């Protein structure tokens, strides 16, 4: 265990401690105060960066300049007037979503929107947090905080004074989202059942043809039982298998559902929380098969034929 007088400014500990400080300032205000939202947004960005730095501070470095990488590794500056640059928070969120299955598109979507509000507050005359309460953003904020802390193995009660309230709010929010989705499915089911049988059969056939043609994960619509599609986002590592005998490479990757569409009854659902409530939230596997020559960028028959044709155009040396 090495001794260190100071932490690296991009280390998870340094970023998390600052986030903790800002959460403390946030909790010093009531949920109706505009400052509550502003400090929450500042703390959330620091927490996102801390979660990425938990893997390595190097992931925060702007790789367009190698000196930023060197700085992130803890090396002293080797160039005069060097000022270390880290990636923007949008990129931080993208990397977190790709690396951690617990950081869903719902969470990153909320974070992006919340940071936009923060930017409006800081960089314009707009009152982004004033007079708007916290009911619309506080529960997803807690969900994001819980997920980011989970990456770092930290419990909610170390960060939030009222962690129990936060847990209750998260549960209630997920419950409300579930109820809203089930109501939506019910409404589409009622409309579908009101259609004549002939129309229903025609729409079902169209949906089947469409689901076969389009990319996505085929499933049964919870409202009308027609063939429908779930679109997902890649998550986690890619597994690669080479089949030398048949000259193919198969890649598989886990996909987390992000949206659902049924063209028969018109039901659309987006967001993992709502998809889960509708029974469509299970992860699925996306499989891609490539010819080995394409995957490894080898010469294929077409390349060799072209090379032979080029060779025929050369004239031999001749002392004429």
């Amino acid at each position, binding site marked *: *265990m*090495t*001794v*260190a*007088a100071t*932490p690296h400014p991009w280390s998870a*500990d340094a970023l998390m401690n600052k986030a903790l*400080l800002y959460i403390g300032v946030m909790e010093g205000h009531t949920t109706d105060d505009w400052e509550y939202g502003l400090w929450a947004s500042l703390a959330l960005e620091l927490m996102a960066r801390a979660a990425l730095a938990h893997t390595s501070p190097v992931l925060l470095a702007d790789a367009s300049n190698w000196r930023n990488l060197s700085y992130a590794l803890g090396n002293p500056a080797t160039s005069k007037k060097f000022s270390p640059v880290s990636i923007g928070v949008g990129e931080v969120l993208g990397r977190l979503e790709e690396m951690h299955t617990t950081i869903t598109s719902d969470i990153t979507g909320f974070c992006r929107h919340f940071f936009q509000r923060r930017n409006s507050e800081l960089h314009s005359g707009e009152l982004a947090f004033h007079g708007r309460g916290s009911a619309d953003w506080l529960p997803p904020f807690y969900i994001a905080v819980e997920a980011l802390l989970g990456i770092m193995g930290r419990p909610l009660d*170390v960060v939030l004074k009222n962690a129990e309230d936060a847990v209750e709010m998260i549960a209630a929010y997920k419950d409300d989202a579930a109820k809203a989705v089930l109501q939506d499915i019910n409404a589409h089911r009622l409309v579908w059942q009101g259609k004549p049988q002939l129309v229903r059969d025609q729409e079902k056939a169209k949906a089947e043809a469409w689901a076969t043609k389009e990319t996505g994960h085929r499933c049964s619509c919870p409202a009308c039982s027609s063939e429908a599609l779930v679109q997902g986002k890649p998550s986690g590592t890619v597994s690669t298998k080479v089949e030398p005998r048949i000259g193919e490479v198969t890649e598989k990757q886990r996909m987390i559902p992000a949206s659902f569409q049924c063209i028969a009854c018109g039901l659309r659902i987006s967001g993992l929380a709502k998809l889960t409530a509708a029974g469509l939230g299970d992860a699925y596997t996306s499989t891609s098969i490539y010819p080995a020559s394409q995957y490894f960028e080898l010469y294929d028959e077409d390349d060799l034929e072209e090379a032979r044709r080029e060779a025929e155009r050369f004239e031999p040396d001749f002392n004429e």
Partner: protein
Amino acid sequence: MRLCVPTVRLVGQAEWAAVEGATRPVSVPLLQGCTLCVMMRKVVRQGCEMSAAAERFAEHGFVFLPNWLAGRSTLDIAAELGGLLDLSASVPGLSIPAVQPLRLQSEAAARANTYSKQFGRAEFPLHNDLAHWFRPPRYMLLRCINGDHGVPTRVVKGAELRSVFGSDRIDRALYRPVRPVDGLSLSLLAGGFAGVRDSVRWDSLFLLPANETAREFRDFMQSVGNFLKGEKQYLAVPGDTLVIDNWRVLHGRAAASRDSPRVIERAYLTRVDL
């Protein structure tokens, strides 16, 4: 010279002394009446004592070893226990010897920005060593060179503080060093050490509270903490050694009289291998 019957050989004083000084249990058949076996029995007993010491250290975060390996230097002892930590190598520009002599000083004679400058021979409040560092040395040993029965070192376990003040509150507390450690920038320091059970960070002189919970802990330490009994360890006889987990235990020296002969040597360790 002594006779060892099983091996039918004479055991010289040097070999006797080497066996006496051993700290690891030795697996030998113990035959009654055999001098070598008597020596081995002693080594086995010493080995058992060290195992018990290791258990106490793991549980409490400190262990007192009375008159331990007397006559050997603190440098040797530190190497015996584990890795000696050279702070100068860890932090560029820092000039601290690997083994530091600690002598009682008056406020007037002490260097600026030291505990002695602030408190002189009066009682030192409870603290971790180098608590204002992001990651202070984990382990330290205090070894008596010249003892004083009237000047104990008080140790208080982080576990006790956490049970009284609140574990999650200690983890939420944030501090900052009074001065930039590297002369350049200030960093926030958490009230506990992440991943270490019963850890606590505290120093009333070199740390400033940075949030409300830290201010509450400061008030707690000023009103209650410094009156916590803890345990008093007496480095009274040369060789008395106190090994401390600097992340899990706070310590502080009692007040000393003007003519106290107390001299202690301190070394920081990377690990403790009892």
